[in-house]
C-alpha cells in the first residue's frame, strides 16, 4: 500500500497544474505517487478534477506545468507516435462503457486486440480468456443493447484487460449501475488488482469507498486535500466514530 513506497512509483505526478484553454484551472500543484499493485480510490465532488487527472494519465490532455511519469516514461516528453504503446499498458473503463453498439460482445473485445495488431491466431483464445474472467461466457454473440448495464461494464472491463495492462484506470465505473451490480464490478476490480495490476478508480460511491478501506485520495477544487491508507469517503473528523 502507500507505505510500501520505497520502490520507484509506477505513476508519479509532481507539481502538476492543468489549465484548459478556456481559462478553467482543473488541477493545482498536484503531487501523487502510486506504487505498483496499489488500489487507489480517487474521490471528490463533481468538477473537482478527478476526470482531468485520469485524462492526463493517458495523455488525452497535456499538463500545463509539472511532470507526470507513468511506467518510467515522462508523459510530457512522450512523442505522439509512441502514445499508442503507452495506452496499451493502461486499461480504461468509463461510466458510459464506450462500447461499439454495432459489434457483438466478442467483437467489441476482439476489436481492442485487432487495432493493436495482435496476431489473429491468438485472438480467439485471448478474448475467450478475458470474457471468462469477467463472467460473460455464453454471451459472446449478444450486442451491447441486449445486455444489462452491469454486463456492458463487464464487456468494457474485458476489453481493457485484453492487453494484460499493468495499470487499470476506472472513471466512475459504477456511476450508471445499481448498488448490487456496483459491488460485482468492484469485486472484479479487486480480482484484477490481486493479479498484480495497479488500479486507480475515480468514484462518487461513498458506500463502496467506506466499506473497502483502501487508499483514498480526495480532490477538491483541483487540489489533493487528503491521501490516506485504509481511508473513508470523508475525512475522519467528519465521520462518526
Amino acid at each position: 500500500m502507500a507505505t510500501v513506497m520505497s520502490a520507484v512509483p509506477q505513476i508519479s505526478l509532481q507539481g502538476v497544474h492543468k489549465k484548459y484553454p478556456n481559462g478553467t484551472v482543473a488541477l493545482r500543484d498536484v503531487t501523487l505517487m502510486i506504487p505498483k499493485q496499489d488500489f487507489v480510490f480517487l474521490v471528490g465532488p463533481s468538477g473537482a478534477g478527478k476526470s482531468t487527472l485520469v485524462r492526463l494519465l493517458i495523455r488525452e490532455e497535456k499538463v500545463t506545468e509539472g511532470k507526470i511519469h507513468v511506467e518510467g516514461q515522462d508523459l510530457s516528453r512522450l512523442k505522439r507516435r509512441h502514445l499508442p504503446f503507452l495506452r496499451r499498458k493502461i486499461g480504461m473503463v468509463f461510466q458510459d462503457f464506450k462500447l461499439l453498439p454495432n459489434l457483438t460482445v466478442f467483437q467489441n473485445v476482439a476489436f481492442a486486440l485487432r487495432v493493436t495488431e495482435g496476431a489473429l491466431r491468438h485472438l480467439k483464445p485471448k478474448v475467450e480468456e478475458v470474457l471468462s474472467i469477467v463472467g460473460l461466457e455464453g454471451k459472446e454473440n449478444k450486442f451491447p443493447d441486449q445486455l444489462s448495464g452491469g454486463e456492458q461494464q463487464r464487456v468494457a472491463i474485458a476489453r481493457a484487460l485484453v492487453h494484460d495492462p499493468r495499470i487499470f484506470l476506472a472513471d466512475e465505473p459504477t456511476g450508471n449501475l445499481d448498488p448490487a451490480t456496483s459491488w460485482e464490478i468492484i469485486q472484479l476490480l479487486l480480482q484484477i488488482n490481486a493479479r498484480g495490476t495497479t488500479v486507480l478508480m475515480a468514484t462518487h460511491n461513498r458506500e463502496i469507498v467506506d466499506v473497502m478501506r483502501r487508499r483514498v485520495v480526495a480532490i477538491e477544487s483541483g487540489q489533493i486535500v487528503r491521501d490516506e491508507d485504509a481511508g473513508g469517503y470523508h475525512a475522519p473528523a467528519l465521520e462518526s466514530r
Partner: protein
Amino acid sequence: MHRLWNRVDFAFSSAWQNFWRNAAVSIASVLIVWVVLLALGSLLLVLHSLDQIVALEKTKASAISVYLADTTPLSSAMDFKLHLESDPRVTAVSYVSKDQAMARFRQLPALDPSVIDTLGTNPLPASLDVTVKDIRDLGAIDQAVRLSPLVDRSPATNYEPNVIDKIILLARVAGIAGLVLIIGLTGLSVFIIMLTIRTAIYLRRKEIEVMKLVGATDWFVRWPFIVEGLFVGVVGAVVAVLIVGFGYHPAVVNLQSVLIFVPLSFDQYYLRLVLAAMLGFGLLLGSVGSYLGVRRFLKQ
C-alpha cells in the same frame, strides 16, 4: 507478416462494412467523384481534339498551295518548282498533279464520293505545295508567286492569314479556359469529398475514440478510411470511365458528320491515357479526401 496481414484485413473489411453501413453518404461521394471525372475526361478529350485541329492547321499553315493554271506545261511547272526551291526561305516544294489533287479531295472525311463523281471532269488545279521555315515569310512568298504567269488566277494560292491567327488564338483561349476549369473542378471536388467523408467519419467518431483509447496507432485508424475513400474513387471512376470510353467513338463519328471540314479524328492511344488518368485521379480524390477528412478527428 501476420501484423501486416491483420492491418490489411482490418482496413479492407472495416472499409467495406462502413461503405455499406453509411450507404447514402457513400453513394453521395461516389456521385461527386463520378461527375467530376466525367467532366474532367470529357474536357480532356475536347481539349485534345482542339489541339489536334490546331496542330493540323499549323502544319498546313507553314505551307501554301500555289495553284497552277491548267494551261501550264509540266516542264514549266518543274522550272518554277526549281526556282522556288532555290529561295532560302523555302524548305521544300512538291508538285501535286490534277489527279493527285482529286485523290486527296476524295479522302476528306465524311465527303460522299458519289457526289464528286457526278462532276464528270476534274475541276481541281495542279499545284506546287511550298513549305517555309518561318510562317511569317508566307505572305511575301504569296505576293511573289502571284506575279508568275504560270499561276492560276481563281484563286492563285490558298493563303488565308486571318483564319490561321484566329485558330491559334482560339486554341490558346480554349487551353487556358480548360486548365482553369480543371483546376477549379479538382479543388472543388477535393473539398466536397473531404466534407462528405468527414460527415461519414463524424458518424463513427466513437469508433475512432475507442480505437485511440485502446492504443491503435494513427495510421491504423487512418487506413480503413483511406481504403473506403479508394472504394469511392474506384466506383465513381469506373462508371465515368465506362461512359467516356464507350461514348468517345460515337461522339467523334457524329461530330465528323456535322462538322465536315473540321479534321476531327478518333485517337485510341490518347483515349487510353485519358481513361487511365481518370482512374488515377479518382483514386487520388478518394484517398486525399479521406486523409483530410480523418485528420481533424485524429488531432483531438
